[in-house]
């Protein structure tokens, strides 16, 4: 969809007017700023270990924008900040990475499920949710994010199988950044493409350039339309190359290909889209500054709010695992308070 400003011409996407194009830009910048600032906050010791998603913004924003507000998103840790596009406060997501219970949210408030850490295990949740909505006759669609590595997990396979059999209104969105920590895609699967896997689950599989936010948007929108029309799930494989460490604790130098990293950085998705909008003449210098300042300000406020959270009370250790903590748990809390107090 997005050309190179030279020999490869720009395409167009139906239904995206100037306003929608700029909204998409705002989302990309918000995610980019979140990610860049988070890395800084990590280095400053203000958040803990953090899973960097630099270069993945087009997949996240492109997919999210193709959904209606009532549609649900099931993120993995790589999409930890996807909720920002649905109104989850910056401070909430930062709190999650600060190991603070203020990082909890009610999925039903934002139609965004909790951040999922065990690989692939959110796929059956999303399949069950989409199926459940269909059973109730509601038009809701679900979209689940997962990585290339996740497609090796049993949970992915079982979730995709369910989605296919139940004809669940689900988009299985694979962030194929070609690495699972240090394991390259070539060691992950013998399939020529991940989209090829879709056929085994009885659903269409499509493959898009994950650095082209418009291509991601278009492919996801088609999948969402199919789901809403009752035609079942779609597997979307969005391809990029992970240009950053897996997370702040990772040093990729022993395994990554530095040339591919440089190429991925040159071709990164936010800059690509910015160039496109400029060529189209819908983005001015003043707008760029305004959007970036807005995003930076949100981050500043967000980290301040997160840091202003009082230290969590120890009672939170015992709350929420059960609707009604019973006597033994209350006694544990009382004993712990006595010991900590004395």
């Amino acid at each position, binding site marked *: 969809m997005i050309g190179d400003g030279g020999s490869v011409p720009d395409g167009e996407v139906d239904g995206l007017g100037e306003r929608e194009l700029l909204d998409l830009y705002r989302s990309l910048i918000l995610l980019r700023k979140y990610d860049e600032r988070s890395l800084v906050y990590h280095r400053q010791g203000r958040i803990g270990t953090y899973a960097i998603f630099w270069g993945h913004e087009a997949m996240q924003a492109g997919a999210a924008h193709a959904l209606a507000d009532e549609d649900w998103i099931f993120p993995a840790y790589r999409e930890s900040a996807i909720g920002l596009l649905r109104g989850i406060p910056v401070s909430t997501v930062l709190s999650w990475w600060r*190991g603070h*219970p203020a990082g909890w949210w009610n999925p039903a408030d934002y139609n965004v499920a909790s951040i999922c*850490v*065990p*690989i692939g295990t959110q796929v059956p949740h999303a399949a069950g949710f989409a199926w459940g909505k269909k059973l109730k006759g509601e038009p809701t669609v679900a979209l689940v994010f997962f990585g290339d590595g996740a497609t090796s*997990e049993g949970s992915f396979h079982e979730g995709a199988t369910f989605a296919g059999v139940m004809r669940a209104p689900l988009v299985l969105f694979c962030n194929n950044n070609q690495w699972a920590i240090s394991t390259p895609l070539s*060691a992950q699967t013998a399939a020529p493409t991940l989209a090829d896997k879709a056929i085994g689950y009885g659903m269409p599989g499509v493959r898009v350039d994950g650095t082209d936010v418009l291509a991601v948007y278009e492919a996801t929108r088609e999948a969402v339309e199919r789901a809403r029309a009752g035609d079942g799930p779609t597997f979307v494989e969005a391809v990029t190359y992970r240009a950053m460490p897996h997370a702040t604790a990772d040093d990729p130098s022993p395994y990554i290909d530095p040339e591919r990293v440089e190429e991925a950085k040159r071709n990164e998705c936010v800059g690509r889209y910015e160039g496109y909008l400029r060529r189209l003449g819908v983005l001015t210098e003043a707008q760029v500054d305004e959007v970036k300042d807005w995003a930076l300000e949100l981050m500043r406020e967000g980290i301040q709010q997160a840091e202003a959270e009082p230290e969590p009370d120890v009672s939170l*250790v015992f709350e929420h*695992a059960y609707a009604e903590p019973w006597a033994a748990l209350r006694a544990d809390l009382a004993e712990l308070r006595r010991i900590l107090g004395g």
Partner: protein
Amino acid sequence: MAERFLVEAVNDALHVEMERDETVLVMGEDVGRVGGVFRATAGLRDRFGADRCVDTPLAEAGIMGAAVGLCMAGWRPVCELQYDAFSYPALDQLINHVGRYRWRTGGAMDFPLVVRMPYGGGVRAPELHDDSPETYYVHTPGVKVAIPATPADAKGLLTAAIRDPDPVVVLEPKLVYRTARGEVPEGEHVVPLGEARLVREGDDLTIVAYGAMVGVAEGAADRLADRASVEVLDVRTLKPLDEEALLASAAKTGRVVIVQEAPRTAGYGAELAAVLAEKAILDLRGPVIRVTGYDVPYPYWKLEDAYMPSVERVVDAATRLLEF
């Protein structure tokens, strides 16, 4: 002898055993190219090749199930599961096959596989990098379970596990991977499975622990030193348990505090307490007291210090018992 960190001792054991026995094969997520996310398998791929130090697909049930087949094909697989909580997809294979296959062949076939994983909390990590899942493994018939607390034991127990004809799960306390440092014998070093380690002798009270909680037990013993002479027993092998060492210590001091990081209910401490109730009741001068994690999900890390058994909690329990 060289001074090593605990994780380096694991690495040393793998080098020595792979050198000694060419059927030993290391497999797991990210164990090869990068040498494991904790570098426990660093250097193995360069030394022994990509066929004997294998980066597997991201599939724990696949790792565990394939290890069963590799055993049948004549290998001794040492599987790394990347973290405690990510071992759960492998439980189906572990419970239904790893622990039963020898039995199912009437004892005709050995399944000499090892599963090793970092476990436990206190490392300020995001959700699900902190679990203490030993009970699931201990509860599985047909597998043995070991947990080292020192570098020398990390090497010796892993070596014993690799040479053992039965499946052995070795849980490594990640909290002390790079803080526990000590002398580790060079070359081959075996610590037999089923033998506890008397960490320090005492007369008034025994603290029983394993893994990262041994350090907490020692801290509590220090704190109590002016009031009581405290014995510390490191279980080291959870299954088979060294009952003799446990009962001897209980008979000597008459007071036992058990420390375990995992949630309390039906945790390993309950097993130790049951053994004491069955076989040492007349030696005891007071109740067996457990200091454990709580029966709730492991909390986000701002709260983890409150969840983990602390020196203060162990001292509190010991004091109650001494004053019983």
